[in-house]
């Protein structure tokens, strides 16, 4: 599968590709979940690896928890996630099309994304909810990500999960 990954962005949409392309590399993550039932927040470590792919027309990432160093003595448990995200710029829609394919629970998620000011906002509508995943505070060495849900059409948002990421290389 040497054709899967790419060294850089396609010249076709170089400016748009850079929006997610600046995340290429390997990141250590601290993931915090905020249960809806009021129980205390739960934290786990993880890793997040991004790369250009498909002749530079896509950005892929692999989302994992726990971090590899925490599973040295055993295989990853069946319910511990190692999932694939595919992000493809769609010039007809002037949006990113996003899919997540989880291996732990069979999750499959579709979203649309755009850079809005300094953030990259991803969104999907499910049932009566809007769900947003937002990349924010992006620097060369760190970024922040949050997963929020709105049950009132985007008027208010509840933080379900957030990630602090630190670049490993």
């Amino acid at each position: 599968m040497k054709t899967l990954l790419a060294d850089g962005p396609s010249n076709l949409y170089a400016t748009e590709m850079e929006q997610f392309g600046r995340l290429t590399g390997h990141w250590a993550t601290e993931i915090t979940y905020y249960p809806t039932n009021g129980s205390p927040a739960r934290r786990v470590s993880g890793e997040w690896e991004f790369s250009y792919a498909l002749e530079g027309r896509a950005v892929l990432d692999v989302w994992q928890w726990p971090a590899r160093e925490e599973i040295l003595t055993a295989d990853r448990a069946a319910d511990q996630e190692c999932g694939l995200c595919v992000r493809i710029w769609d010039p007809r829609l002037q949006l990113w099309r996003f899919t997540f394919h989880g291996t732990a629970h069979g999750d499959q998620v579709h979203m649309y994304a755009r850079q809005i000011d300094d953030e990259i906002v991803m969104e999907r509508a499910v049932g009566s909810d809007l769900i947003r995943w937002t990349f924010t505070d992006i620097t060369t060495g760190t970024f922040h990500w949050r997963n929020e849900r709105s049950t009132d059409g985007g008027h208010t948002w509840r933080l379900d999960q957030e990630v602090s990421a630190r670049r490993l290389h």
Partner: protein
Amino acid sequence: MAAAVELIAAPWNIGLRPPWPGREPGTWRTPQALLSAGLEARLRPARVAQLDRPPYEFDAQPATRIRNGVTIREHALRLGEAVQSALAASRFALVLGGDCSILLGCLLGARRQGRCGLVHLDGHSDFRHPGNYDTASSLGSAAGMDLALATGRGELLLTHWPVVGRPLVADQDVIQIGDREEAEEEAPPVTRFTAQEIQRIGIADLGERVIRRLEQRELDRVWLHLDLDVLDERVLPAVDSPGRPGLDFPQLAELLSTLTGTGRVVGLDVAIYDPELDPDGAHAAPIVDCLASALTPLTTVGTHT
């Protein structure tokens, strides 16, 4: 200075719900119906741009609770380019829909040349958004959401746009005219003249009030959205959601003429007439008469070829 008219045919029905299971709405036939009824001959446009008919999908598209939401975005971007091109050529853009979701592409095209207000003529508020109805129970129809989406309420898919961002138009720059169901749904926070209020004040006074509001807001550029269900169902029943009270054709022509006569209106979209609900075509002619009487003055100067 008056400008030549450019007709843009947008044969859409993707913003409407199926009239019954498995049946597509017929509004996509409208551009051809109005052209066949003489609109082109009456307005002598500088150009007629024909856009493709978008495919209609009955089932939900991924990650959106808006029927045909992905398709609407794609074709709104195309329509926006057509409108932008017409305005860049100093032409008055007359967009023949289609359903009310064409408003998004029209505003997108108009906004690319700067600030642009909206006069929204419609028998309904078209202000549905995920905060005021149950999106889980059924797919939403963009033709009932166009004002909410245009003012930035709803899914990212149809509220965040290239270059313009969000919203396409600010609440304060919108004037809505003709809503007859004000008590039934959340009222949009815009300047409003309901159908009942228009009955009280009359068309001449309405026109003066609208112009005064445009002057107050210093809106030199305005887009005019015309959902033909602003007409009373007794004069135009061939629409998706007919009702009363509403305008008659002479009142509508007078209002359109007054507004376009200000020189502030850069374009007009016409939506929701359904030729399939008008099998003998009886209603196409009065629609053409109304548009022609209001817009013909625009064709007297310009680059007509």
